């Protein structure tokens, strides 16, 4: 992955006359890179950074966009997904943005991408060294809904006072008989910092630990960057007698038959009929291209995807 050094490589278009490569000015990129380095040096620690207003609203991925803008270069291959799919509207919008301002090749192929920016999911395919996973984070502070004050939560991280988090887990077990989180399940990173992995489903938590790839997490509105470097210990919080569990389905993917992927529920009519399909659209497409078929292969959903691809 290359690093942009000057603004001479700005795209030729009219856009290029007014905007620097990848939109952000070089000073800002430098500031963000310093924050990234600090975040990698202290895994799980939230580094405050001077988040800029971007052409996309706060809450819609500006943290991830700024991370990508700071590290992307013309030799990168960029993939952008939302809810696991490449063609959800916001993913399309952000991918178009970078195609325009970074003049970069874009792809839907997880294996071919050097930078994967994602909202709320990690791809099924294991990531390799040389890939960077950029996650969009709405609320970087895992304790925020337990303690609204930033002055308090900052002190809790500094003093490693995470009792409040465990109290919340205790409450979950006492009320529901289990730790009833679905997504954004808090983790301990290197047994030091409590971290919010972003609203990825619990299912994806195990992918963060001991990964070959770098994970960068960015919250633009809350102005925090944090990271999980490769080969880092990431432990999902649990109790000894209520260990961490991931979601499972009885069904497999209706289109490709995958049994161990995260599945989306698709409502077919208002009589309760539904089907389950892979959330990771590329994973599903790759499997179908390789000949796998699920019980509803040939369904309209499948056809619509083929049309959209054309």
């Amino acid at each position, binding site marked *: 992955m290359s690093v942009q050094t000057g603004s001479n490589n700005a795209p030729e278009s009219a856009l290029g006359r007014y*905007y*620097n490569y990848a*939109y*952000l*000015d070089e000073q*800002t990129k430098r500031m963000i890179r310093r924050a990234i380095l600090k975040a990698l040096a202290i895994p799980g620690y939230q580094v*405050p*950074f*001077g988040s*800029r*207003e*971007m*052409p996309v*609203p*706060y*809450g*819609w991925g500006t943290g991830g966009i700024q991370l990508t803008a700071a590290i992307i270069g013309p030799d990168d291959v960029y993939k952008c997904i*939302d*809810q*696991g*799919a490449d*063609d*959800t*509207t*916001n993913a*399309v*919008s952000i991918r*178009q943005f970078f195609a325009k301002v970074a003049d970069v090749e874009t792809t839907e192929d997880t294996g071919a991408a050097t930078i994967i920016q994602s909202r*709320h*999911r990690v791809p099924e395919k294991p990531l390799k060294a040389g890939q960077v996973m950029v996650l969009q984070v*709405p609320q970087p502070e895992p304790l925020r809904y337990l303690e*609204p*004050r*930033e*002055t308090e939560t900052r002190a809790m991280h500094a003093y490693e006072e995470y009792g409040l988090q465990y109290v919340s887990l205790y409450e979950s077990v006492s009320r*529901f008989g289990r730790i*009833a989180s*679905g*997504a*954004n399940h808090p983790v301990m990173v290197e047994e030091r910092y409590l971290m919010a992995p972003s*609203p990825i*489903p619990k*299912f994806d938590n195990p992918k963060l630990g001991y990964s070959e790839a770098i994970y960068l997490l960015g919250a633009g*509105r809350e*102005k925090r960057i944090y990271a999980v470097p490769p080969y880092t210990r990431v432990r999902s919080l649990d109790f000894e007698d209520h260990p961490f569990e991931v*979601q499972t389905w009885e069904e497999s993917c209706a289109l490709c038959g995958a049994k161990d992927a*995260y*599945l*989306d*529920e*698709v*409502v*077919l009519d*208002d009589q309760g009929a539904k089907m389950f399909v892979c*959330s990771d659209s590329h994973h599903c497409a790759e499997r179908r291209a390789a000949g796998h078929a699920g019980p509803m292969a040939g369904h*309209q*959903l499948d056809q*619509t*995807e083929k049309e*959209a691809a054309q």
Partner: protein
Amino acid sequence: MAYVAVKGGEKAIANAHKWLAEERRGDPAVAELEVAQVREQLSLAVDRVMGEGSCYDRDLAALAVKQARGDVPEAVFLIRAYRTTLPRFGASAPLDTVGMAVRRRVSAAFKDIPGGQVLGPTFDYTHRLLDFALAADGVAPPPEAAVAEEPQAYPMPTIDSVFAHEGLLETDEPSADAPEPFDLTREPMSFPAGRDQRLQALARGDEGFLLSLAYSSQRGWGNTHPLCGEIRMGEVAVEFVPEELGFPIEIGEITVTECQMLGGSRASGDKPPQYMRGYGLVFGHSERKAMSMAIVDRALRDNAAASGQVAPVQDEEFVLYHSDNVEASGFVQHLKLPHYVDFQADLQTIRRLRREYFERQALKEAAE
């Protein structure tokens, strides 16, 4: 009827943009709005966009208002995003509001003050009756305002000098070795907030939010019984010291509104009792904003710990974190983005809990 998930996004987005442009234009039979018209005749909207957008440029702000179809927070967003791309080549000298070319200046604290009470171009004493003459085509030219016989006092001293010789009003002189002021547009907020961070956040904060907070403090949610020491509006020079020259040059003139609220004295062991000040300063002619800002500034400085109960307006984190309408609008509206993956996780959980609940109920009934 088959439900199809959000697909075909690219085409949908392109079509949506085209439709939006049509809506913005409205009825093609009606003359297109010119940016200059917005700038001249919707000047208070332009002022608000400059203030909350943190960028003084009337033409850009007018363009933003037009592009945003009159939606002020949307226009503010456009200005802020544009501002991000502007290079920063330095900081101006502090504005000298004493040297303001005053167009309006009133004080509620005194019947008369040096320089006098200057009513200026204000809505204050108009009767809020819709003026249908404004709706007629071919409107007659507006009446000309009369010119005064004598020029007004210049410079017009601020409330500070009135109190200065008695030392009744606290002063905030920065010490010679004070660090550079905080820059909220480049650094993230941190608490407890210094005065510079606080005032910057308030200056660009949403007018509606600050207005409501100020209102709440006047109604008893907090401890502020403010008195309007002074409001002034007019033009001030912007000065900048280029490195090459080493002396200040005037690079332009901007309109600002400044408000000083006087709050109750605070007995502090080592200082004699004094009036505390709430300060508001905003681009353009925005009195409601300047006043709200000053009231909220004063309320935030209250020693809330002493009084125990913290009203929302006294809660620094609550006020400063939620005053930015670009952040607020983004996050509130992001709820429109798909959340079906986390929702799926949630559905799984609730279905399992329901299953267990009904199993338990069945067991209970069987036992009875």
